[in-house]
């Protein structure tokens, strides 16, 4: 019996409406795809697609404008928060989010990030921290762990020569502007559910006009880490999650769940 004959009574799983029905270019096992899906699911739940403007950044997620089924702007490397601020300030009725990697956000774009947060600009940032520059071939990122090998730290990152990693959520926690800051990961179903809840809270912070929100998603880059996807997930749990604590850093009062 074929599906068309009408036996389907309820949909158990389908593509979120906020994701275009196209093939993604991400490597097998890359967690960018999971994060895209979570963002799209939350957009569906909050019915945002028709009033959303997404800002794609320069990194492996540059093609995000092909994937999110809403108006999209592709920004210069590191400038997504400034572009988002430009959109949001002239059209506060729109829902504006950026999707950025760690090179984009924490290296070249750290100034735009900090100042958008300090101004309490009412935008939401989805920050994918995979500890490397994925797109350009796996070079060191500001978030590369001490000792971690990358193509520009072939002997392992030596903090004396190459500096120390930046913990973005902790850094931004020092500011008064953020309404919601959380670090999550997507290495198992439980973590994925938590990540989605965090993204939803971040988006709600904007919808409630509470100010800047950012969710840092610890993410794998199996290709540049030169690991099979399963091993990459375990490596993340064992190493990245140890250096970058998974937790909520700032939750504005207006976001606290009603008991």
């Amino acid at each position: 019996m074929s599906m068309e004959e009408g036996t389907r009574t309820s949909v158990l799983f389908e593509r979120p409406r906020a994701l275009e029905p196209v093939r993604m270019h991400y490597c097998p096992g890359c967690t960018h795809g999971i994060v895209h899906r979570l963002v799209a699911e939350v957009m569906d739940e909050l019915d945002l697609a028709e009033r959303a403007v997404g800002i794609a950044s320069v990194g492996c997620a540059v093609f995000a404008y092909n994937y999110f089924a809403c108006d999209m702007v592709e920004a210069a490397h590191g400038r997504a928060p400034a572009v988002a601020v430009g959109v949001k300030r002239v059209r506060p009725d729109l829902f504006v989010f950026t999707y950025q990697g760690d090179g984009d956000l924490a290296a070249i774009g750290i100034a735009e990030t900090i100042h958008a947060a300090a101004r309490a600009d009412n935008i939401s940032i989805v920050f994918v921290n995979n500890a490397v520059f994925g797109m350009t071939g796996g070079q060191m990122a500001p978030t590369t762990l001490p000792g971690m090998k990358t193509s520009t730290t072939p002997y392992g990152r030596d903090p004396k020569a190459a500096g120390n990693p930046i913990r973005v959520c902790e850094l931004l926690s020092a500011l008064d502007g953020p309404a919601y800051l959380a670090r999550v990961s997507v290495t198992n179903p439980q973590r994925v559910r938590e990540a989605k809840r965090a993204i939803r809270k971040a988006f709600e912070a904007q919808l409630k006009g509470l100010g800047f929100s950012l969710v840092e998603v610890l993410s794998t880059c199996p290709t540049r880490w030169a690991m099979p996807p399963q091993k990459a997930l375990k490596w993340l749990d064992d190493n990245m999650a140890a250096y970058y604590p998974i937790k909520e850093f700032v939750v504005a009062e207006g976001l606290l769940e009603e008991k």
Partner: protein
Amino acid sequence: MAIRRGERILMRGNEAIAQAALDAGCRAYFGYPITPQNQIPEYFAAHMPEVGGVFIQAESEVAAINMVYGAAAAGVRAMTTSSSPGISLKQEGLSYMAESELPCVVVNIMRGGSGLGNIAPAQADYFQAVKGGGHGDYRTLVFAGWSVQELYDLTRDSFDIADRYRNPVMVLGDALLGQMMEPIILPQDVIDPDDLPPKPWATNGAKGRPRNIINSLYIDPADLEQVNLRLQARYDEAARREVRYAGEHLEGARLALIAYGTAARVSISAVEEGRAAGLPVGLFRPISLYPFPSREIAALAEQVEAILVVELSLGQLVEDVRLAVEGRCPVHLYGLSGGIVPTPAEVLQKIEPLMAETRA
């Protein structure tokens, strides 16, 4: 503040530029302080709230131009201003905006360069302005005024031109023009942004229409070539429609000075003194620097015996003049640098020997 319109009032160049933007329906300004243009952000900080617009003192010129990018993408008339070093920082953003086909107006109140230079009047950013400035195969349309009134008029028109060509437009002034006060008449009519034609390409929420994408990434060279050819076609159209220039005392002139902005203001005094002394000398003043009035300068070169380019830079404008003249007559250069502005007498001293040559 009720501003008086339709009658002569005194205004500073920088303030006239800001008022022109407000009158053109600009409702978003993003900038970072730098002398000698600080009265522009200060004017917006005071007056943008009166019209319900957005003013942000950004964390850098880089951030400011990218905020302009976002506001323009959302379909709002947006502007940033700066002076030379800050304009350098905006070039990446301008390149992205041109390739993404986004309109905006940028004002450069030029100061002495290179490097930190100084805050004196200069025109050394000519190449940067008219040849592209940032990376890639794009142009900004560039206009240069020589009075407070003209800066007002050009800034105001620039918003229409930017929208028409979906391209950044740059207005050039300098430390002198930005700081000086002159009489100006503000027109009675001002543009209400709600009356402007809709921008169906804007990313402002895909309600009841297919989604819009604003982007400058085209992996396939054939696709990128298509975009660049489209931009080029617009620049060709601008060359047909937007060329602006003015001529003074050119009838019967045997020597023509060519200068813009402050250099033109000094030159006109020299020309008038020369004429009073019986010298057949005139002034041709390009107002659009890109598109450049090449055809008009070629025609001028047929009519005069020699051309003297006066510029506050060491040989930038003169290159475009020579390209236009194509050897029809000798082209001489009086270039000054570092923020030095010549006196009319100094310009006249350059004119006199050239006049003697043309007579010989």
